[in-house]
């Protein structure tokens, strides 16, 4: 594997990590959004808060990672993408601001009205951002972003069948992943009722995501032929693994026996994302810009790879520590004062 291929793999590693970790955080916002009124939705919302509180910022850094690798290693593609997809990327950036700040604010305020307003901003933007990201992915995958640091159509590039598919799939997949994770978090906290609550939602979301993915095959066939051909040839094993993992996870979720369901759902989503990458190989921007053409000079690629190795040595163990402490319930809440202090 040459340097530019290696960096492309690193980039896709980041995209996959963002989908699996950041995606679940977005999905938690989706469940927050549809949890119902202040009273009925209180317990699921508290679970969402509790579940993503310690990890969302770290998970969110994968996005920065992807953007930085993209603009450093494939600068021309980055310029084309940002010029063409100005609108959805701006919406995503605004959504990220609204989401992160209102999530932090919600935990820090106590009046029901304030919590509701911040909660609404958090939850709404948690759906907006993955939709925009999915639409951006769809725009790239369907070859609507031209090479050469040029702008494509500012509207049609992200309002088209593949982008809509990407957006809807992103939202449903995030909801699915998140519901599955929330089952575990509920169990960890001995809350059987919430575990059941999220288990049922995981089944529904998983089924919907599966249907969207299935319909997506036909959308891609008519709208994004290169990706479709890739998915049905060299990426086919990944597609099959994804389908099997998805069905397996649904089966386990329906039966309530959840051992392995989480792993299978992660497998289902990861293989879809990796499948996208394999399907559009060897292009960064399908059919107009190849990875090897877009790649930065060797000095830059070496730097990116060195940083990635350092990340593997420093960041991955640190992330592991964070998740282990979190899973062992050693990170129960901010500070020591219980949140009821000010009432």
């Amino acid at each position, binding site marked *: 594997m040459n340097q530019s291929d290696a960096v492309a793999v690193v980039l896709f590693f980041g995209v996959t990590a963002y989908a699996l970790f950041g995606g679940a955080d977005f999905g938690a916002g989706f469940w927050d959004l549809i949890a119902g009124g202040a009273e009925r939705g209180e317990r699921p919302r508290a*679970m969402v808060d*509790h579940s993503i509180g*310690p990890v969302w*910022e*770290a998970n*969110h*850094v994968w996005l920065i*990672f992807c*953007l*930085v690798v993209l*603009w*450093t290693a494939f600068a021309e593609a*980055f*310029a*084309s993408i*940002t*010029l063409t997809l100005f609108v959805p990327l701006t919406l995503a*950036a*605004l959504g990220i*601001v609204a989401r*992160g*700040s209102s*999530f*932090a*604010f919600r935990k*820090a305020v*106590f009046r*029901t009205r304030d919590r509701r307003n911040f909660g609404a901003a958090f939850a709404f933007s948690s759906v907006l951002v993955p939709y925009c990201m999915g639409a951006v992915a769809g725009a790239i995958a369907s070859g609507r972003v031209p090479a050469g*640091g040029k702008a494509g159509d*500012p509207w049609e590039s992200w309002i088209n069948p593949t982008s809509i598919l990407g957006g809807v799939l992103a939202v449903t997949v995030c909801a699915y992943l998140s519901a599955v994770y929330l089952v575990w978090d509920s169990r*960890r906290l001995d*809350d059987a009722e919430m575990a059941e609550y999220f288990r049922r939602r995981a089944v529904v979301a998983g089924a919907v995501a599966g249907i969207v993915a299935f319909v997506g095959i036909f959308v891609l066939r008519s709208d994004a032929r290169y990706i479709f051909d890739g998915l049905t040839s060299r990426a086919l094993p990944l597609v099959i693994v994804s389908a099997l993992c998805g069905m397996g996870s649904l089966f386990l979720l329906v039966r309530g026996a959840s051992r392995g369901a989480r792993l299978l759902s992660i497998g289902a989503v990861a293989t879809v994302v990796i499948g996208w990458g394999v399907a559009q190989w060897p292009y960064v921007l399908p059919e107009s810009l190849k990875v090897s053409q877009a790649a930065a*000079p*060797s*000095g*830059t690629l*070496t*730097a*990116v790879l060195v*940083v990635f190795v350092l990340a593997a040595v*420093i*960041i991955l163990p*640190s*992330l592991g*520590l964070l998740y282990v*402490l979190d899973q062992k*319930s*050693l*990170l*129960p*809440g*901010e*500070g*020591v*004062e*219980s949140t*009821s*202090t*000010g*009432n």
Partner: protein
Amino acid sequence: MMSVLAIDPVPWARSQMAFTLGFHIILVPLGVSWAAMVLIANYRAIKKDDNDALVLAQRWSKFMAVTFAVGAVTGTVLTFEFGLLWPRFMGKWGEAFGVPFAVEGLFFFTEAIFVAIYIYGWKRLKPWPHFWTGVPIVIAGIGGSISVVAANAWMNEPSGFTLNSAGKVVEVNALDVIFNKAMPYEAAHMVVAAYLVGGFLIASVYAMGMLRGRNDRYHRLGFIIPFTVAALATPVQMAVGDTLARWVYQNEPIKFAAIEMVPKTKSDVPETLLGHLNSDGTVSGGIPIPGMASILSDPKTGTSTVVEGRNAFPTSDQPTIAQVNTVHLAWDVMIGLGTLLFLLSVWFGLSWLFRRDLPKTRWFLRIAAAAGILSVVTMEAGWVVTEVGRQPWIVFEQMRVEDGATTNTGVWITFLVIVAVYVVVGVTTILVLRGMGRRWREAGELDETEVPYGPRGSVERPGAPDEVPVG
């Protein structure tokens, strides 16, 4: 975009970048230096069994959770904006300019992970391990700001790349990009600024509290820890800033000409306080200190030191008259307020040295209460000097700002939306932080069951009665 909305994006892109950077930079000192102050309080709490310090440390870390979140998301916006506002700049230079950001990513990741562990770890981690989980935040904060400033320094002193005849970057030396000529000076200036501004900002809140009669030990400690950090940073910053200014004189003469408002190359240049440059090249108003700019530029040659004027550079490569006046005013503000903060620090230092106490007069607290905002203004002014002073270039002598900007004509809309969103976020951040402080004041001391590092109780459930929000 519809043609009626086709408005030149360049001024709007510049405004949006300036506004979002100017907003984010207020949160940066808190992100970089607050953790260090929390750890000072935390250390004292464990070592001396100091309950006030303990309460401070853990309340600060809760505040930090809010400011860190807002800092993280506004920083993410900047990441997007590099592409959204400056795609042609990134398309050409991302391969070099991006390298320091790749390094910064490492630090940001580390910071985000350990901020979470530290903030959420108060209850269940043991005291010393918990303390140590805070240390990576401090290191990552410093490393992260050095990396980002390295990228900015590269825009001032681009190096580490080779262009082909078509002007495309064909070779990059990553280390030469990161360690460009301006990097050590700018990075040192910003890291010290982060401690200075962070310290004054936090101390100012407690100065306000003390002015309102909350003169207990808790408030004094909350004032003294950050104020001492800031007071120690201030003289260091004067030395770093002075070195940097002389370096700019030697290496970036056009920026220096704007700073000192020098129209024509000459010796015996006065240091003009305030005043402005007219379009005919004359300087009016202000208080000139004869020969001072020459003396400061090179004390060895004194007033005979020659300072290059704007006329030494082609007109098209100079900042405009308005930009020169902006740079000069910002410079005066930075130097003036910096000196004021230095004198305030000296006052505090002398009082502490001789009386082991704060200066008695309320005027000290009044000025200290203003020092938070003043230090922010000082830092913003410093960024105006370096950014406006580089105009018309986005990459010095390599690319002009308008050649790097987006061609999307709707930027004026995003500018307006962003300003509206940020105003809401900014005001809300302040209200939320104040609300937290007020709530804790009303609640008083921690009660028995909330002692940190306590025995591991049963796992509490979210939504359990003690956590139910009551409206």
